[in-house]
């Protein structure tokens, strides 16, 4: 059930919060545009994010929170902003504070009903105590019969937008892509340190892939103002001028795996929705910067409470005033810079509370907007904006994926990676490992980039040295790597996690600090347990904002230190990635025989069989069957697997892989053979011809061609490397045409002048080579899958169409017609010939496939022999039988079960068709041995619930059981 997503509601405030032109703004005031938000048209400039454009128009509420449906506004004004998940056209869960607005974009709020402003589910706030820690576990426990009802309730409250249904999903509009990259150095993060590292690595001769999450390089310099503007411009200018650096913006490193296999999601591309870049980096430089941490206090999620970086982004990048009257809680120089920025653009900073001197705030008043704040000293200040600058989190995710355990540094009030634990092929620079002036950050980035370049050269030499080559030496002497540059300084920072009130810790999942305290009180006293019990850090933001606060609050509640409590585990992907990007473009190549175009021109219905597209039939499969039984027909059997075997040891290989005897196959003879795997299960079947002393042509089933090729190679490479056999796959080198029917000899004779086709000269199961319709080097063999006299012609593929058309022309007076796969299936079923994989399955041993007579257990060895010996001695396995239904018109669906005593399953139908030749159904089945003797009566459970009776026939063949037609 889908609740109406939203209804146009009371007009939101449209007072403009747009500022005068700002020196570093990224919006293009010459490119105004419009888009819609919840059905209303809004103005924007190119370069605006969805959130900045709306904030410029005075919109403060962007979503409702997950559990309590509290109004949510901007918090970080970045990709991570948990309050700005929106629906864009048919795309749900778009990060509204990151996605750039486009002309005509239709944006709406998610999961609100009846509207964003009036959301009835906000009543959850009133029943908050029922939605406390472990709500799901406590409430929806049982009884299990109520689960369907629970699911209905949970569904209505489920978070997230709406995906389009299949009918309205426009596949042509959505494209996903993949790319492989092989940079010497991959730099994750395009701030000052990352940019400096990329430049230094490139200068040292490395190729560099520089990946930046934002839409432009620069990191925190982008909103750094006058002091850093020229430095940023210089770094950007140098990078643009360096051909060895490829920059991916709006792209995120998702994970780091073995041997620096680094996955990157690239967004914002003009022609694809998302691209997955799979990079094999010789060295990885992590320059992920720092993420500003929210502060926990009552009302910390009321729209109008923002981080200092959010304020600076809004002002400097988008020229949007974040409010009118601000209170700032600051604990670091970035808080000072936010105060300065607010004052510069005319926001009244009514009060600054400095945590470095013991200042604090207690709670924010207001529901859908900030109305005031209570300070620690008891004062109350009216305002519409509360800014916090209370600390940083190092995004150590990529480093922990490489095995680093972060250590809590109380002096800096954050977890920091111990870079001495890093493997040689990973380095880190910038905020993620330390602080420092801009010059220090750039110098450290440069030093790191140089080391990354030299190490990438070492890694390349190690790869080459460790690869044994045929005749080459393996140099295992380890070449030492250059040491990492000295560490960056780390600035002291007050430890600030929670005020004396409780507030939201995880904004995505609506988990409060009191929920965490409850979880600890209920016994979930470790960070990992409290996380799972409360779902803190398990929402869309995945802990990037809130993990350290969670740890700090669990530590506080348990009386342990933060280091003792430890962080939860970071796992890839670091950022969300669509399933479309992981799946990539749809690339399923289809194989076509050189005759397929002819089939399509002649009305063939295509059948996709494995990798091949084949003619299923040409309109009337029953008529095709009759043509083969009465006259002559042609079928394109190009997809059957074909392997050329050369060498003196081919008979030994054939003896090993086939269950029957092959040592005495004479030149010019063809033999049918069955292969079993080492567990005795039927693997494949086909015929093999001996063309010359050391030259053989093997055929396999169409679907088994690759398997058999690998099977032969496996024996030759691992068990018998001393055997002289060369295997060449030639499936597509030949077009294969089967000419079948009582008049096939007459037809083939007309196009094959040089081969004596008389039955005595070219009997059944013999092979000849010669010219067909003027085409030399063709192979002809007499076999008969259809049960008719037939010749299988293997023609060099380029001449396939010529030979086919020559046969059609030469046989017009004989009534020759093409037949498709369906007719062939009927024909072979009438004859009782099995298809491996259709009439056998992954458990069918040779005896159960009716192949007992073929298996030569007196052969010394062949694949699967021991299992077949034991099966022969002890088991009474199921058998393949033919059934004749009492009602000749009944064709039980393949897969129908054979039952006794009403429901006891004793077998199943493996193949069934109506036989045009006999005018009744023909059926093959796997049946328990006690029921499998000829004359035994069985009951078939039909899919419609009816029962049909049938009797086991003598032998499998229903048409020409004596084989007179075949041998004629």
């Amino acid at each position, binding site marked *: 059930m889908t609740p109406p997503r939203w209804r146009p509601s009371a007009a939101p405030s449209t007072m403009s919060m747009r500022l005068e032109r700002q020196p570093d703004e990224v919006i293009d005031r010459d490119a105004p545009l419009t888009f819609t938000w919840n059905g209303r048209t809004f103005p924007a400039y190119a370069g605006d994010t969805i959130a900045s454009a709306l904030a410029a128009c005075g919109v403060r509420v962007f979503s409702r929170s997950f559990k309590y449906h509290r109004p949510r506004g901007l918090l970080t004004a970045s990709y991570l902003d948990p309050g700005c998940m929106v629906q864009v056209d048919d795309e749900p869960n778009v990060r509204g504070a990151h996605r750039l607005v486009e002309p005509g974009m239709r944006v709406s709020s998610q999961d609100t009903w009846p509207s964003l402003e009036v959301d009835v589910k906000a009543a959850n706030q009133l029943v908050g105590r029922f939605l406390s820690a472990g709500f799901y576990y406590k409430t929806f426990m049982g009884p299990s019969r109520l689960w369907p009802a629970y699911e209905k309730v949970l569904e209505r409250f489920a978070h997230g937008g709406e995906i389009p249904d299949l009918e309205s999903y426009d596949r042509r509009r959505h494209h996903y892509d993949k790319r492989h990259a092989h940079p010497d150095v991959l730099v994750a993060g395009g701030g000052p340190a990352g940019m400096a590292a990329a430049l230094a690595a490139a200068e040292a001769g490395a190729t560099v892939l520089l990946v930046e999450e934002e839409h432009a390089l620069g990191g925190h310099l982008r909103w750094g103002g006058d002091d850093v503007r020229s430095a940023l411009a210089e770094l950007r200018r140098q990078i643009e001028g360096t051909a060895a650096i490829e920059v991916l913006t709006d792209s995120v490193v998702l994970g780091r*795996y*073995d*041997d620096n*296999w680094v996955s990157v999601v690239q967004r914002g591309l003009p022609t694809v929705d998302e691209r997955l870049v*799979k990079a*094999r980096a010789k060295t990885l430089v992590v320059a992920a910067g720092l993420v500003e941490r929210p502060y926990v206090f009552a009302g910390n999620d009321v729209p109008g409470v923002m981080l200092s970086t959010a304020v600076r982004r809004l002002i400097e990048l988008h020229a949007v005033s974040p409010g009118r009257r601000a209170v700032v809680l600051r604990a670091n120089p970035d808080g000072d810079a936010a105060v300065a920025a607010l004052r510069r653009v005319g926001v009244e900073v009514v009060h600054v509370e400095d945590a470095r001197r013991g200042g604090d705030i207690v709670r924010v008043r207001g529901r859908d907007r900030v109305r005031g704040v209570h300070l620690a000293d008891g004062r109350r200040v009216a305002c519409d904006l509360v800014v916090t600058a209370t600390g940083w989190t190092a995004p150590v995710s990529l480093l922990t994926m490489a095995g680093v355990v972060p250590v809590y540094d109380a002096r800096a009030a954050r977890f920091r990676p111990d870079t001495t634990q890093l493997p040689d092929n990973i380095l880190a620079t910038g905020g993620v490992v330390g602080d420092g002036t801009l010059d220090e950050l750039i110098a450290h980035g440069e030093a790191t980039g140089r080391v990354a370049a030299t190490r990438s050269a070492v890694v390349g030499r190690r*790869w*080459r040295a*460790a*690869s*044994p*080559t*045929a*005749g*080459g*030496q*393996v140099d*295992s002497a380890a070449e030492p790597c250059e040491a990492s540059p000295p560490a960056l300084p780390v600035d002291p920072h007050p430890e600030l996690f929670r005020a004396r009130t409780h507030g939201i810790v995880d904004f995505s999942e609506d988990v409060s600090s009191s929920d965490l305290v409850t979880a600890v009180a209920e016994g979930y006293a470790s960070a990992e347990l409290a996380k799972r019990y409360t779902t803190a850090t398990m929402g869309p933001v995945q802990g990037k904002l809130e993990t350290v606060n969670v740890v700090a609050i669990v530590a506080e509640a348990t009386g342990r230190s933060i280091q003792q409590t430890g962080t939860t585990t970071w796992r890839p992907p670091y950022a969300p990635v669509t399933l479309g990007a992981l799946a990539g473009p749809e690339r399923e190549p289809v194989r076509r025989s050189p005759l397929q175009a002819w089939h399509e021109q002649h009305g063939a219905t295509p059948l996709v069989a494995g990798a091949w597209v084949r003619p299923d039939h040409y309109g009337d499969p029953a008529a095709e069957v009759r043509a083969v039984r009465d006259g002559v027909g042609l079928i394109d059997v190009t997809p059957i697997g074909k392997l050329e075997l050369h060498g003196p040891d081919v008979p030994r290989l054939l003896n090993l892989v086939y269950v029957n005897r092959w040592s005495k196959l004479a030149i010019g003879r063809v033999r049918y053979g069955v292969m079993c795997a*080492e*567990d005795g299960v039927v693997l494949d079947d086909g015929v093999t011809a001996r063309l010359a002393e050391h030259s053989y042509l093997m055929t396999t089933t169409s679907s088994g061609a690759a398997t058999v090729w*690998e099977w032969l*190679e*496996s024996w030759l*490479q*691992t*068990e018998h490397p001393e055997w002289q056999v060369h295997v060449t796959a030639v499936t597509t080198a030949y077009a294969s045409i089967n000419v079948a029917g009582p008049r096939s000899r007459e037809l083939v004779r007309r196009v094959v002048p040089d081969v004596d086709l008389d039955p005595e000269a070219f009997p059944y199961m013999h092979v000849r080579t010669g010219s067909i319709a003027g085409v030399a080097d063709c192979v002809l063999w007499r076999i008969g899958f259809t049960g008719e006299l037939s010749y299988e012609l293997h023609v060099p593929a380029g001449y396939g169409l010529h030979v086919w058309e020559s046969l059609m022309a030469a046989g017009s007076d004989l009534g020759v017609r093409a037949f498709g796969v369906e007719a062939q299936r009927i024909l072979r079923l009438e004859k009782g010939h099995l298809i491996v994989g259709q009439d056998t399955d992954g458990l069918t041993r040779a005896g159960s496939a009716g192949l007992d007579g073929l298996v030569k257990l007196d052969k*010394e*060895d062949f694949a699967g*022999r*021991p*299992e077949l010996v*034991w099966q022969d001695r002890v088991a009474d396995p199921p058998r393949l039988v033919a059934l004749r239904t009492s009602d000749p018109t009944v064709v039980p669906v393949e897969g129908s079960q054979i039952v006794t005593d009403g429901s006891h399953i004793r077998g199943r139908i493996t193949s069934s068709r109506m036989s045009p030749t006999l005018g009744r159904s023909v059926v093959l089945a796997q049946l328990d041995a006690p029921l499998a003797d000829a004359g035994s009566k069985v009951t078939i459970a039909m899919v419609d619930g009816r029962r049909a009776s049938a009797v086991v026939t003598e032998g499998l063949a229903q048409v020409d059981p004596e084989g007179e037609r075949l041998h004629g």
Partner: protein
Amino acid sequence: MMLIPCPWCGHRDAAEFAYLGEPSPRPDPSTATPEQWRGYLYLRDNVAGPVTERWYHRMGCRRRLLVERDTTTNEVRPHRSLVEEES
């Protein structure tokens, strides 16, 4: 996604290979007991640590090769016997 050292193609992405697992010596089929044979078919040691493994470079040279891999770290090196054979 680790790299596999192929003696014919060099270091290549593991996605190009099929994993064939620990080589299991084939017992003499004429004397093997069912226990021995099924051990060959199904039982592997599954060691945590260095293991000799067979890989098949399906998307490359189509050769089977032996490597030594530490299953706890995914550190892969060419198998000693192969190295000795080739040098």
